[in-house]
């Protein structure tokens, strides 16, 4: 069983990388011309000034989005952790909601809000201020940064909240006692002490932004702003498709993400210099903002409106229209349920939903079980070279979704074992993509299981399999469950990997949304999107409820 898990992991993690590199050195294969070795892809990809522009645009986009998300998230986290802003406990709970909204729906809703032609915000502002032209253009680099940064600011918020919570508040208090004011403390002590977390958070956000596909594809491509991910998509989807060129782009993207991920891991492994953890159960003193606390509360409300209420409201509005129309009195009279009727009569809807459910539940289960064994080997045994296994299983984390889809597509096109075009290739892709996350969740939990709990089972006469099944897995339950929920949610929203791998039989919900967008069926898309978001929301709530039930029990242990 251990062997099977190890072989499975190595197979699933190493194959895509190898094939991607191999493919980037090959000419396209046709019926009568076999593929041969070539450097042409690299020359085509890197031999022109266009590539430099591509690279520059990608960097500017990723940098802008990550810094924007970080600034927003950090300010909110600081306000939430260190000030007496009213309603902040409510806000913390609400801050998790945006993570449920799939990127493609978030992007679409912001198009409906801020596109120069139909954007509601633009039209409203034009009406009020009597402007000739639309004040906002979402189809621009700035628009891309706005949407992507806004969507991932909750991630920055969560990461920085954790960093602030880990810090010994007496360090800040002593600065206050030395006479520093609120902003001096925040700038000169709080932020400096959380410096490793700051850099790590920005890097994580940067890597994520450069992997982002939905925003550049929906907002950038219509006006010719290309980044690496959208360039890869274009290269595959033109006719004849140029997989080799896409692979060459992908290799560059992979290099950037690898450097980013490597820096993050280096940073967190030598963060001990800034050991901010003291283990003392101090409650941080909260800064009294006085009347300003209503101002910070207003910031929270505006933020929540921008990230959840407005996007969801605009989707909801549009989902009750026959053709998309800007809100107005006459549009109000044309409310209809047609889009929902369309969604429910959509051919293969049942099958699509079933695919999504099967894929997300199935891959979450497999990911968590396989990584629990891998993680046991890495954490609990003293086998030489176990760190290699850890790195191999974490390898897929450097793959942007699109690049992973590309590599897997290329591999199973060349090695025909009958999975191409079936649901199995989607399984393989999802499992590969989310394995590193499963591993992280399991590792956190596994580290907390005392070695002697396992040894006492061995002394009781239990074999390894029995020990694993009856001791390790039950004790791992909090991590297993949290990881399972996470992987389930991210795989049900997955788009960028699936988009290169699906076939008509293996469509998933996010792909249907993508196709509706391509066909210009906005109102139908909105209806499906509203249902999807509601379903995801319910799913997360139920999962949290179950998780809490188990979580509470385990906490006593």
């Amino acid at each position, binding site marked *: 069983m251990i062997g099977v898990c190890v072989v499975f992991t190595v197979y699933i993690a190493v194959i895509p990388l190898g094939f991607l590199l191999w493919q980037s050195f090959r000419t396209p294969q046709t019926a009568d011309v076999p593929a041969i070795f070539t450097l042409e892809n690299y020359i085509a990809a890197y031999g022109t000034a266009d590539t430099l522009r591509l690279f520059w645009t990608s960097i500017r986009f990723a940098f802008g989005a990550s810094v924007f998300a970080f600034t927003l998230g950090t300010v909110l986290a600081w306000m939430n952790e260190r000030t007496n802003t009213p309603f902040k406990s409510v806000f913390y709970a609400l801050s998790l909601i945006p993570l449920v909204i799939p990127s493609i729906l978030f992007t679409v809703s912001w198009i409906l809000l801020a596109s120069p032609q139909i954007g509601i915000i633009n039209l409203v502002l034009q009406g009020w201020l009597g402007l000739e032209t639309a004040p906002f253009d979402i189809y621009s680099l700035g628009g891309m940064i706005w949407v992507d940064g806004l969507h991932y600011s909750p991630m920055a918020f969560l990461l920085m909240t954790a960093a602030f919570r880990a810090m010994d508040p007496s360090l800040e208090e002593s600065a206050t006692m030395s006479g520093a004011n609120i902003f001096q403390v925040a700038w000169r002590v709080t932020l400096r002490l959380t410096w490793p977390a700051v850099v790590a958070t920005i890097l994580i956000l940067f890597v994520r932004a450069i992997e982002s596909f939905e925003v550049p594809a929906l907002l950038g491509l219509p006006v010719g702003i290309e980044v690496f991910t959208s360039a890869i998509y274009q290269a595959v989807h033109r006719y004849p498709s140029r997989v080799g060129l896409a692979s060459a782009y992908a290799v560059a993207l992979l290099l950037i993400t690898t450097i980013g991920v490597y820096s993050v891991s280096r940073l967190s492994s030598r963060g001990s210099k800034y050991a901010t953890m003291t283990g003392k159960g101090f409650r941080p003193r909260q800064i009294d903002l006085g009347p300003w606390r209503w101002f910070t509360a207003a910031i929270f409300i505006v933020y929540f409106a921008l990230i959840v209420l407005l996007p969801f409201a605009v989707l909801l509005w549009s989902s009750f229209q026959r053709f998309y129309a800007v809100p107005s009195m006459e549009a109000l009279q044309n409310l209809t349920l047609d889009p929902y009727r369309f969604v429910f009569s959509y051919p293969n809807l049942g099958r699509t939903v079933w695919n999504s459910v099967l894929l997300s539940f199935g891959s979450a289960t497999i990911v968590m079980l396989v990584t629990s064994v891998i993680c046991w080997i890495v954490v609990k045994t003293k086998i030489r070279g176990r760190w290699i296994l850890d790195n191999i299983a974490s390898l897929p984390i450097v793959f942007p979704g699109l690049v992973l889809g590309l590599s897997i597509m290329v591999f199973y096109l060349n090695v025909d074992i009958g999975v191409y075009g079936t649901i199995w290739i989607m399984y393989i892709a999802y499992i590969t993509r989310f394995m590193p996350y499963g591993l992280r969740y399991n590792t956190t939990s596994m580290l907390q299981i005392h070695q*002697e*709990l396992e040894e006492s089972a061995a*002394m009781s006469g239990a*074999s390894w399999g029995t020990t694993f099944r*009856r001791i390790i897995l039950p*004790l791992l339950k909090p991590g297993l469950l949290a990881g399972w929920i996470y992987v389930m949610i991210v795989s049900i929203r997955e788009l960028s990997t699936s988009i290169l791998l699906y076939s008509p039989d293996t469509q998933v919900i996010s792909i249907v949304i993508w196709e509706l967008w391509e066909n210009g069926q906005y109102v139908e898309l909105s209806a499906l999107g509203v249902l999807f978001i509601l379903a995801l929301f319910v799913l997360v709530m139920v999962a949290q409820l179950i998780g809490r039930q188990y979580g509470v029990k385990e906490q006593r242990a």
Partner: protein
Amino acid sequence: MLNVAGLFTEYPNPQGEVVKAAQDVTFTVEEGHLFTLLGPSGCGKTTTLRSIAGLERPKAGEISVNGRVVYSSAKGVFIAPNRRGFGMVFQSYAIWPHMNVFQNTAFPLEVGDRHFSRTQIRDNVMRVLAAVQLDHLADREATMLSGGQQQRLALARALVMEPALLLLDEPLSNLDAKLREKMRFELKRLQRELKITTVYVTHDQSEALALSHQIAVMNEGRIQQIGKPRDVYERPANRFVADFVGNTNFIEGTLHAIGPGFHLTVRTEIGDIKISTDLPVSAGDRVTMSVRPEDVALSDTRPQGENVWEGRVEQKVFLGEAIDFRVTVGPRELLSRQHPALRTPVGGPIFVQLDPEKCVLLKVV
């Protein structure tokens, strides 16, 4: 019963260096005896115990129980821990938090090689829980137990499969002082009643002295002395044992004269001390003696007999049931434990007497 012969162990530390733990460890434990491995942390006692358990694979040596070889480097035998059938109580107790008291105790009967019916499991579990006085808590969640109850549960779980050998790894070190003392009696009673052969690991000398039939004192991977508690305490083999097992005064000197019947005189910085020994020594040897604080007799009036000096009280520490004196005799300072009735003030003169029988000559290493 248990035979450990020529055991060598080593393991890589987190820096990747090889640490040598047990070095040529050899001992025998008789049927029904409680045998203690005593030593400071890092002396190899836990590694030795874990080697017996099979949780660690030694480099060399042989371990057998009742003639059954469970490990032998020469014969290439290594039996997995789950096939050895030994019971073990861990330092952390290792109570499984996801099972209740009954389930924890029943686990060894469910997973072992021997198969038990459901009623057999029930009967065995309840019997052993009754023995450790936990039968009324059988349905309680294991995490809801107090420290002492957890300790007894761990013991019940180790005993339920009627093991050939019981291994205890510092089982009392996680309890507070009062409870530790209570559990010490409990453990001793249970071990003596069940007559189960036991290997006990601890760094606490009073625990070792209180519980054991035999004690092996270990340091830096090697056994320094094996003996009955009284022997180890009263006749320590070397400086390390004398120092580790209880407090002591070391007095260095030169053997001056050997009289009849092993009566010797040692010339030291406080004067000539008459002692007796059965060690093979000769005149002119440099030697070290160990004298326990309770064997340094103090009195306000000059006592009769040999080895009497006059000294001065430097410091007193009142401990409740006893009082510790620091007394200078010439250039030396001696530690003495006395009944609190002795009230000589600090700075006052005092008489010091050493019983020749209690001045233990240590082996010259």
